């Protein structure tokens, strides 16, 4: 049944249906409402989950790690500085191979302090070892929360997963969302099978042991293999979800009017919606333009991105955060994807939308206009910035 709800509510609904055993969460704008909705579910007794209302995000992820190692299904959510505080333990959760799924309501990082959207937080967690999915809409935030849980808990994977939704743009706006009925959602996610749980006291295990140079490298290589497994599992779970719901999810990326495009923008998150409007406008004028939206950001789908962009002449990669002293993080990924490719478009890199700066159709049109004549360069360009 279609309902009108915010991105927060959509994520909270998915969490209610997943019904983790433990939710450890700490408030931060613009994530707080997810914690609030879930606390209400717990206090109304409609879920069996234990809520751990921790005193910091560091403790949120720490409690999640403890609970997951104990054998529980575990979820959390955060934003921005909260993720920054959490990130130490996120690396550990990944190294300990714990399937903790979290919503990340994307928000800028201080200083200056700012509560609005950009992707600096997601980029901060880029190398942590969690898989990351970016959502364009509240519907996607709902869907990919269910999908992420099943990916994370897959026995080949067993790593944390982050579902990104743009702060305020998606978290606080009401949209039409069509959630699954509870039973179908629960059946899709399936039961959680703990591996080597601490609470299996008859089979004692030591979690989080320390490794010297004689083992550390091999253990990290095994962890890298786990995130590589996400790709195959993502497609399998996404396919199952698409056939269950009829939604048109197919692959790591979503190309929009890209087949015959000569120019394209590459984006993450809600900006895809804005970019699609810009593309429609230019298409009406006969311009061959398209959008490449990346759903699965980590592990990065290099081959698929290269295939999708190979025929395009000019590509603008839009990064919603700086990677200070370097080109944008998404740009670097796209460039790396295209290196082995025989056909390589000219790449431009735009930084845009920082700290909640409005992302407009005009900005996307500007990028399409500018890249017409762009030459290969390593300089950054900006959209919506007063220079």
């Amino acid at each position: 049944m279609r309902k009108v709800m915010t991105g927060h509510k959509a994520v909270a609904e998915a969490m209610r249906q997943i019904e983790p055993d433990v939710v450890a969460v700490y408030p931060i704008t613009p994530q707080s409402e997810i914690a609030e909705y879930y606390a209400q579910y717990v206090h109304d007794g409609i879920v069996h989950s234990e809520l751990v209302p921790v005193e910091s995000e560091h403790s949120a992820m720490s409690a999640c790690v403890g609970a997951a190692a104990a054998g529980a299904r575990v979820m959390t959510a955060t934003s921005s500085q909260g993720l920054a505080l959490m990130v130490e333990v996120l690396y550990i959760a990944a190294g300990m191979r714990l399937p903790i799924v979290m919503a990340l309501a994307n928000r800028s990082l201080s200083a200056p302090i700012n509560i609005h959207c950009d992707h600096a937080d997601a980029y901060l967690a880029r190398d942590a070892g969690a898989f990351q999915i970016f959502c364009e809409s509240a519907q996607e935030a709902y869907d990919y929360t269910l999908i992420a849980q099943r990916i994370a808990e897959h026995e080949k994977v067993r790593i944390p997963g982050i579902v990104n939704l743009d702060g305020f743009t998606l978290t606080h706006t009401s949209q039409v969302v069509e959630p699954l009925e509870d039973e179908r959602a629960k059946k899709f996610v399936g039961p959680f099978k703990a591996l080597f749980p601490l609470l299996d006291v008859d089979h004692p295990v030591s979690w989080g042991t320390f490794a010297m140079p004689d083992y550390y490298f091999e253990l990290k290589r095994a962890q890298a293999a786990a995130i590589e497994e996400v790709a195959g599992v993502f497609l399998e779970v996404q396919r199952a979800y698409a056939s269950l719901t009829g939604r048109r999810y197919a692959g790591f990326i979503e190309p929009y009017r890209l087949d015959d495009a000569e120019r394209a923008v590459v984006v993450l998150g809600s900006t895809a919606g804005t970019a699609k409007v810009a593309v429609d406008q230019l298409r009406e004028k006969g311009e061959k333009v398209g959008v490449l939206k990346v759903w699965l950001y980590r592990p990065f789908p290099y081959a698929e991105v290269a295939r999708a962009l190979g025929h395009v002449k000019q590509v603008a990669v839009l990064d919603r955060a700086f990677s200070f002293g370097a080109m944008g993080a998404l740009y670097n990924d796209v460039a790396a994807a295209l290196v082995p490719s025989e056909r390589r478009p000219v790449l431009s890199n735009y930084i845009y939308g920082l700290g909640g700066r409005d992302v407009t159709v005009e900005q996307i049109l500007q990028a399409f206009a500018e890249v017409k004549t762009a030459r290969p360069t390593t300089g950054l360009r900006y959209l919506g910035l007063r220079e």
Partner: protein
Amino acid sequence: MPSIKTLAQREEAGVRFTSGHTLCAGCAEPLVVRAVLNAIEGPVVAASPTGCLEVATSRFPGTAWNVPWVHVAFENAAAVISGVEAAYKALTKTGAVKRRIRFVVFGGDGGTYDIGLQALSGALERGHDFLYVCLNNEAYMNTGVQRSSATPRCASATTSPVGEEIPGKPQDRKDLTEIVVAHHVPYAGQAAVSNLVDLANKVERAMKYEGPKFLNVLTTCPLGWRTPRDSAITQAKLAVETRYWPLYEVIEGVYKINYKPKENVPVEEWLKTQGRFRHLFRNPNGKELIAEFQASVDQHWNELLRKEKCLSGAESQG
């Protein structure tokens, strides 16, 4: 109350913490860990922050732990055990876990007094059912004897060295036990490695309560204190006899000093046996510094006596 014999019998029945770890010769930590684990009846899950105990007991692919054990990071053991305990509650609700399981943290003073204090306070306030044991050896021994907030005044540590101007650590130690008491937990107390029966009794009394329990255990580090390797027990004993380390407990707000030394042994007797205080006996102002140290010990002890008197069980029973 468990005697040494009972503890030994329990250990024979099922070893919970094995030999083969790499803690230093003369380290007091394994004595405390074994006494605590053997004093807890039934299944137990343990957690440790980063520190000597963690490093020396869990080098991959080995482990000295024969009970389920988890380490995550330095500052978060109390948050980790909160999660473990929350998982236990949830899975008990669903029927997935059917047995009564107890939870214990073994953390050093660095991971407890300093970097882990916030997580500890949060876990105490939330009321998780666990016992937190601080293996207090009064400095960051694992990283090379740096000062912590548990380090006593005047002690020489590598980040509070004896210099031309400043003779060791200028500040008094933090009174963590009283900070825990201020959380109104059902059980908080102090013990020392020199009295394992007292320690085991305290664990047993503590574990009768649901909710957070805390034990601050003076755990000698011959390496960091610069005392002979066979001195762990005598050092802790002298700390208790000089009233530097009172053995006491606070059960549901009621104070009880478990041992009151009959003789008034000056703290100087304890200080002079340790390398970390040796400089006091060469310093021209040493006498004054020792007198200040003694005054601090006296003040703390007298405070404790007053608390015991004011907040005694007799009074609460009217």
